[in-house]
């Protein structure tokens, strides 16, 4: 490459934006796509809407359960378990209600984890990290393709999986312990 070409290239590069923001938020795209004609057979928008409803439903249910049940003594949340916010498209984030419910479940689970064998505790923590890595990985991919329905569904599934795990560990352990403790 000649010096002249290099200069042109540098000039062109200098004119590029230093920060590239995603072109648009995902949700208007979803709304638009839901009104668009359906593809035969495969209904990603229905699946997507169902996933969103599920997530909202799960969030509400978890909030209800967290509020209804006696709150355990709060334990410190391990840094590895800190909530990984989702960013659908440019700036969508899951609501505060969801985050609060999720944090309450993490706190409840940490209390129950203390009662388990160290190996089980390590297993649970390793699997939570694995889900969070998956969430991070999907989010990374979503930054490249914010409108990708498959990624959106996988992200919602991963969040659901995480909430299910938190609820199961704390619920199972607490229920069984309470039945057998004297």
């Amino acid at each position: 490459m000649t010096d002249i070409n290099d200069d042109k290239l540098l000039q062109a590069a200098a004119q590029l934006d230093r920060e590239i923001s995603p072109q648009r938020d995902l949700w208007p795209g979803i709304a638009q796509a839901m009104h668009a004609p359906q593809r035969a057979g495969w209904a990603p928008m229905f699946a997507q809407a169902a996933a969103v409803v599920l997530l909202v439903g799960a969030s509400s249910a978890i909030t209800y359960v967290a509020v209804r049940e006696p709150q355990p003594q709060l334990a410190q949340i391990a840094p590895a378990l800190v909530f990984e916010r989702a960013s659908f498209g440019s700036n969508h984030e899951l609501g505060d209600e969801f985050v609060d419910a999720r944090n309450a479940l993490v706190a409840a689970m940490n209390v129950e984890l203390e009662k388990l064998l160290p190996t089980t505790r390590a297993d649970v923590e390793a699997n939570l990290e694995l889900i969070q890595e998956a969430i991070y990985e999907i989010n990374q991919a979503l930054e490249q393709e914010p409108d990708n329905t498959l990624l959106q569904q996988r992200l919602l599934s991963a969040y659901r999986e995480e909430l299910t795990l938190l609820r199961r560990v704390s619920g199972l352990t607490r229920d069984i312990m309470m039945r057998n403790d004297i």
Partner: protein
Amino acid sequence: MKKLLVIVIGLVFAMPLMAEEVDRTLDAAPDGEIDVSNIAGTITLIGWSRNQVEVTGTLGRNVKELVFERDGDKVTIQVKVPRKGDRGTNAELTIRVPENSSVNVSGVSADITVEGVRGVQRLQTVSGDVETESFDNDVSAESVSGDVDVEGNKSDTETDIRTVSGDVTLAGGSGIVRAGSVSGGVVIDEGEFSRADLGTVNGDVIFRAGLRKDGRFSAETVNGDVDVEYTGDISARIEIETFNGRIRNCFGPEPQRTSKYTPGLELSFTEGSGDGRVEISTMNGGVSLCKK
């Protein structure tokens, strides 16, 4: 004489520290409910032809009480332990129950094994394996850190099997199955299903069984592969999508790229008259769809 006295006194004081043998029996309803909970150790349930529940085994030195009681059609077996301290609280229990009983078994650090029990089963543990046989009634079995194995007898049932760190396997089941793991695999082997919902985060999903004419099959993973080998004919609308994984389809049609800029693939076609529905999606895993 002095020596003998020392030995006798020693034995008296040592008795509470030793494991206690258990051998107790109660009459029970032929198709009643059996509720078992044991925090640590093993729980083995065996179905038999008598209308009795028999509990045998050993209780750790710090087990405070074995509750074994009947209330109507329900028999409760609970190993009570002190709130604090986990040493010596193990109980190794073998429980024989009327074969048509429904069972509800829970443990924390306990393996659960069930043989020959034909009623509804609900089995759950936190750290331990669960192994059971299913007959004509529904089975729900879950662990957090452990494997879950169910052996079916091809009767139509609803089977729900889950773990977090471990594999789940259903062999010879039929009807409806829901199975999931986070880091382990899901294997469905043999049988014929009207509905199968399978999912993992990192584990592989293997399905080698039949899907009925109007059946619905769904498999989802983030990083695991999905390997489907249908036994018998299949009639379904099939939709497969990956974000970054290959698709191998033995039924003919080739997958298409979802975008010219990304490695994602999708495949959509109808096999037979398209009565059922197959949906498979993964992010980074590969998908193989074939017929045995």
